[in-house]
């Protein structure tokens, strides 16, 4: 039999007609690709490498069946997408906003990611989220805390965690509460690095101090990763404020505490804007010099007593990384869960559909690993129901001391 052109066409038409029977009507999604942008090399590589473990833990929970009261835990993969698995593509931005921009573009155009989660440094989140906006791909700030990020009118920007104004408000609420108890807190010294994280944090603190009648006696902006902080510490020492409020990444945080010791300056109290002050590396290096230091956070392991799944998930993370969840790794973990939950409800990998699902997110606090009331985004993409906590470093671990409803111990004030 000779195969004529007509036969081929007929055959093609016949198989095309049969296709809908062979496959479900909706295109089957085998996997959901999510881009994860972090500093995997360079000065903050340690953060990125730990973040990778936090995201892998979350991906593990999404892809396998776990009996946790956490969205995406039950059942394998995305149940809304016929059990499709999540695949993470990690990209390295080296803490450089321009590299972040390029990597975001690569993830979207080459790796065809459906969403992006990032980025540790707020300065990088600025560029990454702009690229996502242009390609209409949802971006979720897992752990960026600059308040200006969600105020840029981006439609595809979301943040489940608190920002630095919320964190700083908690600090000042805490000061007010202490003052009511008769403690003397009048003067504050700010010590902050010179990128968007440090500047935004300081701006929020300056505004709050003015509103609530605290005097800022030193406002020191320093260059991140400085070889020496001697001059800066001298100014802090001369000011000798009631509370020292650093907004510093790990490297500068370690050097700050070491230099303070060398120059004979013991701060009366330290209330830190997280970052370096929630990292194990800092406490390994200088923890003995700062017993009683307070840092804001959005996570505390003592929540495990009330919510056992927190302890179990922490164990899974610890097996991969050798570390306990801290303020960063917990937010990174939660970031991916929130994004995956939206994709699951969207039943689609289309950017606009995922965005709509994110807008509709309403996740009760009990089904997260955080001390948050719930996850629900406002019209700017910010979750205002994420209550920050203050943690005190005491006897080698962190204890929640504020707000009262989350506290497990009273604050030791002044610092011992």
């Amino acid at each position: 039999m000779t195969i004529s052109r007509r036969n081929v066409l007929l055959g093609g038409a016949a198989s095309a007609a049969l296709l809908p029977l062979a496959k479900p009507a909706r295109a089957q999604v085998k996997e959901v690709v999510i881009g994860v942008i972090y500093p995997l090399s360079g000065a903050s590589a340690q953060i990125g490498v730990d973040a990778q473990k936090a995201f892998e833990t979350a991906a593990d929970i999404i892809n396998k069946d776990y009996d946790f009261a956490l969205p995406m835990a039950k059942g394998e993969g995305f149940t809304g997408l016929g059990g499709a698995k999540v695949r993470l593509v990690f990209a390295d931005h080296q803490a450089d906003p321009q590299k972040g921009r390029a990597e975001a573009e690569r993830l979207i155009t080459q790796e065809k990611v459906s969403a992006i989660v990032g980025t540790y440094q707020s300065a990088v989140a600025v560029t990454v989220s702009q690229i996502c906006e242009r390609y209409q791909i949802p971006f979720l700030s897992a752990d960026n805390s600059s308040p200006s990020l969600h105020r840029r009118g981006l439609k595809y920007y979301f943040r489940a965690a608190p920002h630095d104004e919320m964190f700083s408000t908690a600090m000042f609420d805490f000061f007010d509460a202490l003052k009511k108890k008769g403690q003397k807190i009048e003067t504050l010294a700010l010590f902050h690095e010179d990128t968007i994280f440090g500047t935004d944090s300081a701006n929020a603190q300056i505004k709050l101090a003015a509103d609530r009648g605290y005097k800022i006696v030193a406002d020191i902006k320093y260059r991140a990763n400085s070889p020496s902080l001697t001059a800066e510490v001298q100014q802090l020492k001369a000011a000798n404020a009631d509370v020292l409020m650093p907004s510093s990444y790990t490297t500068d945080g370690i050097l700050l505490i070491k230099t303070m010791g060398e120059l004979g300056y013991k701060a009366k109290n330290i209330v830190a804007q997280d970052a370096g002050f929630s990292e194990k590396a800092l406490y390994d290096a200088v923890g003995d010099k700062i017993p009683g230091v307070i840092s804001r956070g959005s996570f505390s392991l003592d929540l495990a007593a009330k919510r056992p799944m927190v302890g179990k998930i922490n164990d899974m993370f610890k097996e991969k990384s050798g570390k306990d969840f801290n303020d960063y790794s917990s937010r990174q973990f939660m970031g991916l869960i929130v994004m995956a939950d939206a994709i699951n409800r969207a039943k689609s990998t289309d950017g606009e559909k995922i965005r709509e699902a994110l807008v509709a997110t309403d996740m009760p606090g009990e089904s997260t690993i955080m001390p948050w009331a719930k996850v629900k985004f406002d019209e700017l993409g910010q979750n205002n129901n994420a209550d920050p906590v203050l943690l005190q470093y005491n006897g080698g671990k962190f204890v929640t001391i504020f707000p009262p409803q989350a506290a497990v111990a009273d604050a030791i004030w002044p610092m011992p």
Partner: protein
Amino acid sequence: MTAATIIQSLASGLLMGLLYGLLAVGLALIFGLMDVTNFAHGEFLMLAMYLTFFLFMFWAVDPLLSIPLVAAGMFVFGAVIYLVIIRFAMRAKANIGMVQIFATFGLAILMRGLAQFFFTPDYRSIPASMLGGKTISIFGVFLPVPQLVGALISIAAFGALYFFMKKTDFGRALEATREDAGAVALVGIDKNKVFALGWGLGSALIGLAGGVMAIFFYIYPDVGASFALIAYVTVALGGFGSVFGAFAGGIIVGLVEATTAMILPPSLKSVGIYAVYLLVVFVRPRGLFGSI
């Protein structure tokens, strides 16, 4: 601003400056010897700091005692780097300057990557040591002991180096090879041997600096980056190839940094250093004590 804060700033600046000088002199020495700028200088420092850290971690050797060991280890490392990389980079027939830049730059990236892979990017530090965290106070001026010892080591190293360059045969061979490598070969001095020893010596000096810095600074794969820049401007300011220039350059950089931070916001303190450097370029482009 009180007199005490000014004196404190200047004292801290001087101590840091002497350390900057020690950090930079290896670079100046190698450049002076063979016109090669080692772009992996910061990574050599990183390696020296990790050596100090591991000696402390695994064998509980106090950093103060391990400084000579680290310097010796770095001597061998420097000589080997010359023999297996730089020697070949110098054989390029065209664009020799570019080949050297990329060879040492590539080495820097490689060392950083290997350090991140093998040592992990975690921030390390030596929690307790004979000198760490100690400080002495003279009339309210605080002098941290590690930096003080670092400054003394720096002065001693520069003194020894001066003696070595001027009074010993090998020092004179170094000097002669720098002046005219071809003529030196005629009198039977092996150029490669002299260069290898020069690299060894330059690296041993950064080993001294790394040993001191490991006491009071955090250690991680990228730690060299912020110090390398200081080392380059110190050498350029003091004069390329001049050992004494590195000494003077270091002190100037330390003092200018401290003074700038008193006048301008601290985030701008490196502005002073580069302003002074540009001024020097304007009047004396080869650097203050440069002879080339």
